Structures are given as C-alpha cells and as structure tokens.
C-alpha cells in the first residue's frame, strides 16, 4: 500500500478548502490591495494587520490557497508532460505550500 493511496485525501481536502477561500475572498482582496490603494481610491497604513483576529483571517486567506495552488499545479505540470519528474514536482509544490505556511505564520507573528 503506497503512501500515495492514503495521503491523497489530505491534499485534496486542503485543495478544496483553499479553493473555497480563494473563490470567495481573493477577488475583493486583489481589488483592495492591488487596485484600490495603489490607485489612490483609498489609503491604508497597514496597521489593521496587527489586530489579532485579522492576523488569524490573513493566515487562512494566504495559506489555504497555497495548498490549492500546490495540488492543482502539481497535476497540471504532470499533465503537461513532466510526469517523469513527478516526485520532484511533488516536493516543490507541496513542499512550497508547507514552507509558505511557516513563513506566513512567522511574518504574521513578527509584524
């Protein structure tokens, strides 16, 4: 029984959770962070990111879609012909998401 059989539901579960978070929350944040503030429609010093429950929210917002990306991108790269380096791709994608989880937590605790 290979590990892949038993672990896949974990990655798919994280992928789904990340997909939900990304679908409902990412567009408005792109508008706020990427367009509204830079184009001067509103201003922001970023102080609100120091509020504890905002940090919790940001953790969920940023981390879960990373697992969504990891799972989706891993399969996409495989489907685009890179199946021969499948194991390496898994390490880069899922590993990337895991690293991202710790980095995000560290940053949110630091600010």
């Amino acid at each position, binding site marked *: 029984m290979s590990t892949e059989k038993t672990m896949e539901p974990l990655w798919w579960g994280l992928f789904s959770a990340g997909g939900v978070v990304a679908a409902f929350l990412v567009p408005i944040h792109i508008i706020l962070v990427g367009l509204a503030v830079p*184009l001067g429609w509103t201003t922001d010093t970023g102080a*609100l990111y120091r509020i504890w429950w905002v940090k919790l929210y940001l953790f969920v917002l*940023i981390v879960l879609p990373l697992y969504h990306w990891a799972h989706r991108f891993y399969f996409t790269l495989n489907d685009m012909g890179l199946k021969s380096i499948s194991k390496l791709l898994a390490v880069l994608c899922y590993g990337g998401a895991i690293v*991202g989880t710790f980095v995000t937590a560290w940053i949110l605790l630091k600010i």
Partner: protein
Amino acid sequence: MSAVRPDPSKLYHRKMPATWWLTNQSYFLFMLRELSSVFVAVFLVVYLCQIYQLSNGPDAYRAFTQKLSSPGWILFHLVALLFALYHSITWFQSSAVVLPLRIGERVIPRPIVTALHVVAWAIVSIIVLVLFLALKS
C-alpha cells in the same frame, strides 16, 4: 464460439501530443482554470510581502505600496483579478456538481446553485470591503 484476440504487436497506439490542451476549446479553458491557481498564489505572496514590510516600519510599508502603483503591478493585479474571478465562477459551477442541494425531495437546478454561490460571494466581498474601510487607518 472462440474469441479471437487481436495480435498485440499489430495494434496501433496513437500517442497523445504534449499540446493536447491546445486541440480544443474545452481543454484550453480547463488549462486556464488550472493556471488561475498560479495567479492566486502569486498575488497572495505579493500581499504577504507587503504585510511583511510592516515589520520594517511605516515608511517601508508606504514605499512598497508606492511600488504597487506602477503600471506593471497594476496590470499584474488586473490580470490576476480576471483569473481569480475565473477561478471563482468555475469553482461555483463545480460546487453545484459536487454537492447536489435539495429542498425536500426536489433537487435544486445547478445554474441556481451557482447563482446562489455568486450572491454569497458578493455579500462576503461587501463585508470584507466594509470591514477594511472600518478598520483601516
């Protein structure tokens, strides 16, 4: 009655081209949907970088925000927004397939389930917007 198996050495195997996803519209749109996850992830990493600047002080944060107002970054965020919206709508359509909703005995038609998701998305977005405006300084 005996079954005659085809000679395996004479079977012709057609190989799937690496550009399979360019051969029809459905496959191409599928690939765009998958790649939307890359734009979502990149945006969140950029956002995280901006949040990180707070640990370097308010001037660092302001400088980063200034960088984001360059035409290149605005263009990136516009493209990312389009991909994010494409992710959202395809996700809501998929949700209708994956989780059939019922009222009693009757199944709710999929387009309506998708529409309900869109309404929920609009409400959530407005809540986030309002909270942002209320909490920002």
